[in-house]
């Protein structure tokens, strides 16, 4: 089978890492165009050196290029604002699919091991956030065996791996991730926290997931989490459970007070992850970059296979 042609818009950290991943690792996708707006950007120059067709005039340049008709899938790794513009241009081509890696979230959220199979008919899907891709599989792993009232995630990333887009709009991270913890993770209420750590050498991405659920046999949670870790590792090899899962009973006599939920009790579960990147564009500390681009790539590959 011929490889399916894709385009990547956005020549920053995420777009460039995705480009390298597809070139090196994909049996089903080939990059027909790499699109930016600054011909001097490191990403565009690097793509050109790798022999990839580059376009420095944004989505308009992409649509006017001769490869456009053959391109089936477009990854958008720009910004939320730019995605709104790009989508307006692309949505009239109804046979093409767009995978949105920005926080714009026009289309439904996708977390591959949780809900990809249900969304193959959508033309625009959103990859949530890096923290969401790392943690929502774990929230879901708990919620599929125990009703989850509340889930909270803490994503710690190396300062060097947070690009200008993330820094200029950190609320988009917390708000988008929290929403997806609820709608995809299955928690009644979600909360997300992000911490930037500037340590040198840079620290590998860490994620901690807390859930408050009904009390069930702990082994059910352990088994479900371990299975989900294996499922994520299939497309993010550096994804691992870093500590044994910690449990604590919050009893009815000493409840916790959660905004919008009131007094709560039940089983507290604490899951600690480490996400090491593959070191494609940024070094391996940038697991946040890796999990986002790996999730986008597997999404595209599965969309192709489902057709």
């Amino acid at each position, binding site marked *: 089978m011929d490889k399916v042609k894709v385009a990547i818009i956005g020549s920053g950290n995420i777009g460039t890492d995705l480009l390298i991943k597809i070139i090196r690792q994909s049996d089903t996708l080939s990059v027909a165009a790499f699109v930016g707006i600054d011909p001097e950007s490191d990403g565009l120059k690097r793509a050109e050196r790798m022999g990839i067709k580059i376009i420095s005039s944004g989505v308009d340049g992409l649509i006017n290029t001769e490869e456009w008709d053959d391109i089936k899938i477009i990854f958008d790794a720009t910004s939320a604002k730019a995605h709104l513009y790009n989508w307006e241009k692309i949505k009239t081509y109804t046979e093409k699919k767009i995978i949105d890696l920005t926080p714009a979230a026009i289309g439904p959220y996708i977390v591959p091991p949780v809900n990809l199979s249900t969304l193959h008919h959508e033309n625009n899907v959103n990859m949530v956030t890096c923290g969401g891709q790392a943690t929502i599989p774990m929230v879901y792993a708990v919620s599929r065996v125990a009703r989850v009232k509340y889930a909270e995630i803490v994503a710690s990333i190396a300062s060097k791996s947070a690009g200008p887009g993330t820094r200029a709009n950190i609320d988009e991270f917390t708000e988008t991730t929290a929403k997806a913890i609820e709608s995809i993770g299955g928690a009644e209420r979600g909360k997300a926290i992000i*911490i930037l750590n500037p340590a040198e050498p840079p620290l590998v991405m860490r994620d901690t997931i807390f859930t408050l659920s009904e009390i069930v046999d702990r082994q059910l949670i352990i088994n479900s989490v371990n299975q989900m870790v294996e499922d994520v590792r299939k497309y993010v090899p550096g994804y691992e459970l870093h500590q044994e899962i910690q449990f604590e009973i919050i009893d009815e006599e000493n409840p916790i*007070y959660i905004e919008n939920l009131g007094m709560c009790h039940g089983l507290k579960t604490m899951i*600690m992850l480490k996400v090491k990147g593959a070191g494609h564009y940024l070094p391996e500390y940038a697991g946040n970059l890796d999990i986002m681009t790996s999730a986008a790539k597997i999404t595209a590959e599965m969309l192709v296979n489902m057709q």
Partner: protein
Amino acid sequence: MKNKVYIQDVTLRDGMHAIKHSFGKEILTQLAIALDQAGVDAIEIAHGDGLSGSSFNYGFGKHTDKEWLSGIAEQLQNAVLTTLLLPGIGTIEDLKVAKDLGVKSVRIATHCTEADIAIQHIAEARKMGLDVGGFLMMAHMNTPKNLAKQAKIMEDAGAHCVYVTDSAGALLMHEVEERVDAFKLELNSDTQIGIHCHHNLSLGVANTIVAMEKGAYRLDASLAGMGAGAGNSPLEVLIAVLNKMGVEHNCDLFRLMDLADDIIRPMQERPVRVDRETLSLGYAGVYSSFLLHAEKAAKKYGLDTRDILVELGNRKMVGGQEDMIVDVALDMHKKVNHD
């Protein structure tokens, strides 16, 4: 009399850390009114980790920020009602809610190298018409010159005041002076400078004073030092020193002494003082808010609190990474059982 200073009380925000964010609404309201009557210029109210800090990671509050803040502004005669926001934890939406409850001033806090994540929040707070401070935490982890560059980012975003925030209580007096000096060189002359200390090396008051002498105008303090770690610069002590120095302010010393001893100290289940654990925070340069979480982990996993704190320092953990306390404790626990 010398130049007037601006005294901001943090008992009802930083003090939350000392009692696991468990201030009752009634006592908090009484204290806010009493602090206003005692003449402080500003009163900060929020979960210890700022708006929306209530969480598994930092501890759930007895109330929500909304509950703590509601009805307070109407009862203050002179003091400015203020709050705290850490981008990455709280959001601009949270700040809008606080503003609707009468908050007039906010501090936007980031780690001392990450000021650019606050640009959006500072600008939005200005649009809301708030007085805005930039709060550069863990100030000992950046050089004076680079800290001042971060302060400049906050000033450019619209901050009226930028703080040297010694979250770990680790700065020595000359190191505070160097940072305030660097701010003066870098910032516009109409941007105010603030100082926020922790007392882990018993330098809370001394560091506040040297900062003031170098030009800091806004001084943070709390009743009986009620705050994370060994607490903040104790408000009543700071006022006594300012009186003896002849520095002008609006505070009533004896009223503050009474509040500190009669109301605050009896609330402290774990005394807020310099002891081996809190001294270790300052000594190892660790975020003061880690204290009670590290003590809990030490108890649960059979470890020495100091060992956990020192290891957190070695791993260069920054404010907000409370989850890594359990991570460190589990690593140490494994090692102990293995050996």
